[in-house]
């Protein structure tokens, strides 16, 4: 792999690593194993790319699918609690019921978000819907302390979590 190619991968990893790591954590792997699986995923993708086996690099979707696959294997190998079965990797053919449930879940999150305060929505947008957004850049943008912005994020999550629990 050439230096420019490596630089491209560095950028991709910097941009999407957290998202891939989260997807493995969400399957119930402990943090240390989740980190290993994430690294393994990137290594595998880089190898496949170098061998010309990847026509299209759709990130982070491809990395998330690969990481979930590894996570599932990990669970099966260690025969640990299979919380993972509740969220297996996406099936080859789209499952209409799963897609509908997933859409409904998103709608519920958006409905809950709509009931948050304007400042909470602003912070949410700056952190989650802005490229490279994080609490520090959001704090700078809204003129609040980093501590306060983190507090707002936690309050927003708590509000959405509660609304999701209440919603049918």
């Amino acid at each position, binding site marked *: 792999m050439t230096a420019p190619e490596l630089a491209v991968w560095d950028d991709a990893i910097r941009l999407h690593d*957290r*998202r891939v790591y*989260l*997807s493995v*954590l*969400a*399957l*119930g792997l*402990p*943090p*240390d194993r989740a980190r290993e699986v994430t690294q393994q995923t990137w290594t595998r993708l880089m190898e496949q790319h170098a061998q010309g086996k990847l026509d299209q690099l759709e990130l982070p979707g491809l990395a998330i699918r690969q990481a979930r696959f590894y996570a599932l294997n990990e669970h099966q190998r260690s025969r640990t609690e299979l*919380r993972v079965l509740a*969220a297996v990797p996406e099936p080859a053919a789209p499952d209409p019921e799963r897609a509908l449930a997933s859409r409904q*879940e*998103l709608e519920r*999150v*958006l409905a809950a*978000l*709509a009931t948050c*305060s*304007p*400042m909470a*929505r*602003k912070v*949410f*947008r700056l*952190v*989650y*819907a802005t490229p490279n957004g*994080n*609490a520090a850049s959001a704090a700078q943008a809204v*003129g*609040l*302390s980093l501590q*306060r912005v*983190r507090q707002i*994020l*936690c309050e927003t*999550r708590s509000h*959405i*979590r509660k609304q999701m629990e209440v919603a049918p």
Partner: protein
Amino acid sequence: MNREDIELYVMGQYDGDVAALERAIAGDPALAQIVTEEARLEELLRDAAAAATFCPACDDLVRDTRCDSCGAAVKPGGYTALRVLVSNAHGRMYVARDADDRHVALKELAFVQAPSPAALAAFEREAKFLRALEHPAIPRFLASFEEGSGVHTRYYLAQELVEGTSLDRLDDHWYTEAEITALGKQVLEVLVYLQSLSPMVIHRDIKPANIIKRADGSIALVDFGAAHVHGTTAGVTTIGTFGYMPIEQLAGLVDATTDGFALGMTLLHLLTRQEPWKLAQQRTTVNASAPLRAFLDKLTAPEPKDRFASAKDARAALDNPAALAVVPRKRRPLLIAAAAVVGFAAAGGGVFALAHRTHHHAPPAAPPLSTLHVRMTPNVNSLLDLDGKPLQMVSDGQEIPVTSGTHHIVVHQGEQQCMVEETFAGGKTSFVDCSFPVAPAPAPKLHIDKKVTWSLEHVKLHDFVLLAANTCGFSAVIADNIDSATTVNVKDAPCDQAFEVVLESLGLSYSYDPAANLVRVAPAHELEDEVAHASALPDGGKVDIDFKDADLRDVLKVLIGASGTSYNLVVPDDIHAKVTVRLEKAPWNHAFEAVLAAHGLWYRYRENGKLILIAPRHQIEDEDARHPGR
């Protein structure tokens, strides 16, 4: 270890010992379960954020092309609005992304009423100028287009986005003489270009807010909305900014010295950190050499004939300022330097005065600034007074530069005040803590963070309410028996508070119906005892109207027409009133009740026969008291 730590960890925001946290998670299945839950939620939030469209002005979630809450555009003309740079009564300036992923400045012109020929002319003038201009310090024209019709018409102008900071936002910076000279040269070069065009173009609104400083130190001149082609009829329309423009511009007279004068006032503002109108009231010291003061003196001479004849002459003078210092001053021999400031006496309907202030040689040392850090609960935008003068709106965590020394600070949150006397030491941060008791279950109020700047002389209340409703994005109803005029001066204040403060100054208040986003303006005492209730009228259609001083009966008929049901309306003959109402997607029944309530009226609804009987509210209440349960 608590849930918040894990939330922060999952978000990548945990500041503590991550390794220790991970060890704790590995050793505790309950914590591991929380991590899994929070990671799933985090994924969901990221997916939701990717699927959502946020309003670029108020961050509300938008499902259409325009925000239901504040009216800001989301995707005008194929552009994606990213954020609002400036917002005023006439429209907004967005940072937007075009189809090629380039960031552009998108200027929107909105109207309270159907656009007037003058408003359209100004917009078309700006588009025409920009299309023809080609200079590195002038944003490139990209496109102009319109959307909507009638009162919903919006005109757009897309220009190259100038990344930088406008000079009015750098007013805490102490400019050196070298910086002022360099800035003057750069702006004059743009003016030389504009004056070299045939016919010559005059910007007419040079001021710090219209000069953008880029990161590389170069400047850009923006906002050609007031620009004028020399030789065309100026008319009597006054365009420009008080304080910066020369006195003859008030009479519509402009020439090659006009922009130079405004530049001179701009440079004086930056040099003294005093706005031009304040220069007329205070003894202000100019920290500059004699040649520069002589240059500014000539640039801002009250009489056009005493100024530099053109931008080219002024530019040349800056290259050889020493020559200026020896020019004998015939007109003002006693003045070392002078700032000519246009003062505006509103009461006289146009009495203007020129004031000259003596400037002294001794340059003041820039005092070291300290930082006032406001900590406030609940976190509600509040007004902060510094040493008895209203300073600005503040929220929790906000930091404000202040001079060293002891200051009296008052934070106003509604009727509550938090008063603190604090001594600030040079360069350090001092915290001011204000904890306000939370009032139990307040009546619903508008909550619009969007900042507005209103400068309105003797505006009629009805016009002001319509303007506020349109700018801030809510529906409004006001009866004709409430009428007065007021002067409104609000700068960069949140919509909701600015609106409330203006009403309060007139002894008025408003009730707010969140379900309809509907405001009803009424005398404060009339609203005190009002209790929210569910409408007895069935839900139906939503209504969009914009009427000023319309007949009450006509408005009621329009609302019933929008209900989608054939109701029979009975209005006693002795009920006559006018109403001003602006509704945007308001449920008909909420709007119907608000219009009645605004006139002290109410109704009875008989489902059998779909009959709505209108009567004075006190009459209905008396009847209810006599026949409870009716």
